[in-house]
């Protein structure tokens, strides 16, 4: 019960590994996505023990706009360009 309304309490799910597709990454693992492909990646990256990300290109550190980074690199463990 929260504020007098019934709610279901869902236990959080953790993943051992998340495989995420993003658009661009830099050396720290900061990610930006492309349009609706943003859907699950940013969320799963935060919830997995190991986040492995496929990106279309790797860019110079500092070239992603710090205001527009969607997944900060702290959530990213491995980046693969493909």
């Amino acid at each position, binding site marked *: 019960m929260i504020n007098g309304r019934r709610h279901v309490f869902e236990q959080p799910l953790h993943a051992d590994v998340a495989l995420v597709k993003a658009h661009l990454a830099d050396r720290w693992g900061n990610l930006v996505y492309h*349009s*609706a492909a943003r*859907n699950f*990646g940013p969320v799963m990256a935060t919830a997995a023990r190991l986040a492995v990300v496929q990106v279309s290109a790797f860019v110079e550190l500092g070239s992603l706009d710090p205001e527009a980074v969607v997944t900060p690199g702290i959530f990213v463990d491995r980046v693969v360009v493909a």
Partner: protein
Amino acid sequence: MNLSKRQMAARVAQDIPDGSYVNLGIGLPTLVADVVPPGREIVYHSENGILGMGPAPEPGTGDPELINAGKQPVTLLPGGAYFHHTDAFVMMRGGHIDITVLGAFQVGEGGDLANWATDDATMPPAVGGAMDLAVGARRVLVMTTHTTKDGRPKLLPACTFPLTAAAVVDRVYTDLAVIDVTPDGFVVREMVDGITREELQARTAATLHFGVEP
């Protein structure tokens, strides 16, 4: 006599005010966007992370990653934005969606909605964002054929299929009528030409009341 899908969609669209935030469920409800009267600015939400969704792109010009929750290619209007799954559901659960239009397998006269699983083992259940929309949207409109393909009623005293949400439906638009869910049960507000009250009742398992819109 029976409304076509497009006519049903047009009737729903009449009831969507200018400036609304609207989520259209997968399937039949997506037709609504095509028939909204010109001049109304509706901001469409898709639970896969889009606000300000525009119509389908010209063939061959679409962005393969710009799709709606039903995996159909869409476009983004000026003013649109992308966000992730959790933010999409914050909008739904937090009561920020003005109107959702959902399909239904069954609607109970108390406003219960069943639209994700049937008793047919060959149809895999699929809930998507329907539970969160049904509970979170300020107004829940259901758009469905009045009966199943084999003629069984969909408007029941109580749903027999697993519920999507309890006591959430505000209004039902079928190919035969527009019906409000009220504290007194189903109240028919409009009927298509060429059908009688008795004929409509005969295709409905719950008791129908008849009244003009308050």
